């Protein structure tokens, strides 16, 4: 995979994530689609295993750094690097496990996997936030509401993945995905 193409695409999609996400939000519910998670799905479907996992970590760290939490007092923000990165890693791993069973070029596959990926990301992130809030008094998380908004975002991302996934699929040659499935190693004697 071309890391330059990945970086450029991630840069654009992160920019859209910060600039457009609140405009696409359903009311004030917090339910909004994720642009970068569609990229994670495409990369996890087509890139070599290790490359996909590294790409997922990079996207996850980016999401952590662009989504600070508001402290319980409402007077400061808390930047945590880890929860979303680990969530993205779990999502990428799940897609890597499933990719041999699905039709990778089918746009509905990308939509369905986007739904699964965002759901896993939100579950892992909320679990991490809640676990941390047990000993970090600055953090106050309403797990149920956050998770419901996250799962709503998963459905919304699946809908967004139909046009965005198609656009990214058509741009796949620039990513230079050559080895989509690792070949079995032949040990020479």
């Amino acid at each position, binding site marked *: 995979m071309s890391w330059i193409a990945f970086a450029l695409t991630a840069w654009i999609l992160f920019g859209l994530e910060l*600039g457009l996400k*609140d405009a696409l939000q359903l*009311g004030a519910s917090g339910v909004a689609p994720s642009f970068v998670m569609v990229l994670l799905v495409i990369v996890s479907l087509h890139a070599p295993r*290790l490359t996909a996992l590294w790409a997922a970590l990079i996207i996850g*760290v980016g999401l952590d750094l*662009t989504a*600070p*939490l*508001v402290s319980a007092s*409402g007077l400061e923000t808390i930047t945590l690097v880890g929860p979303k990165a680990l969530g993205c890693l779990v999502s990428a791993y799940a897609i890597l496990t499933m990719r041999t069973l699905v039709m990778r070029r089918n746009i509905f596959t990308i939509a369905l996997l986007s739904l699964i990926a965002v759901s896993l990301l939100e579950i892992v992130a909320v679990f991490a936030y809640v676990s941390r809030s047990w000993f970090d008094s600055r953090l106050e998380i309403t797990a149920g509401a956050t998770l419901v908004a996250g799962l709503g975002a998963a459905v919304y991302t699946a809908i967004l993945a139909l046009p965005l996934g198609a656009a990214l699929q058509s741009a796949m040659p620039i990513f230079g995905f050559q080895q989509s499935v690792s070949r079995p190693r032949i040990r020479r004697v």
Partner: protein
Amino acid sequence: MPKGTLSPHRLLLLTTLLLLALTFAPAGVSGFVAGLREPVMFVLAPISNAASFVSRSFRPARSATLPTDPDSASLAIQRNEFKTLWLDAERRIMELESQIRELQQGRATAPDIEFAAFHARVVGASSDTVSGLLTLDAGRNRGVTQGDSVAVVSGDNLVGRVVESGRLTSSVLPITRRDAGWIQALVMTGEGASGVRCHIRGTRDGVLHGDLSEGAVGVEPGQTVRLQDPEWPETAQMLVLGRVERVAPKENAPLRLEITVRPDLQLDRVQRVVLRVPVLEDSP
């Protein structure tokens, strides 16, 4: 592979363990990662700024009270600004009178706080829409300070308080978000600076909801609600929080009244805000 070098798999595992440790590390240990946020936001700003500008131009903040005609709207904004200044002056007079009384009793009082006001653009939001943070293109380079600076729009409508100030950017938490906490406010039932106190908090519907003080009378839909909370900076006092949308008896305590306040604008859709930054006067 030579002995002693890290294999890519092992490096990935170590990175994952590091991230896991950072997730649960105490604030003192993991605090340095906040410093990484500023360069990331700086790199993403060109795209997010353009996307934010386009989205906010197509879906601007709607005002429920301002006229649609630009000239009339401008006049209305000026009128509202002067009304806020007048009400704030009345509040200051009352405070000064109380300070004089305190001084006469030989007690020390806090120095006055002046503020600087300037425009800032909303260049993006958080990638996690649940938090509702707005990112502005002004930071410590323009004197923005966390906790003391507030953002207003349309002259006197309070948007929220600055909860993070980086070197070039800052984040504002709108008052309509639940995380902004409880706010003490005054429902303006008459012409002067007096009114009925209430205690309200943001909800998921973009409104503020809470209780009116005991024995409240004369509160009706449409009345202006202004901030009067000692927990908030001086620069934010008597700014407009919104208008009373609904007053009704509480379900579990029918003798008490609950109130719903709707801001005049959709605070999460504003394109530009005015930042009020406190300037401490030099001591004579």
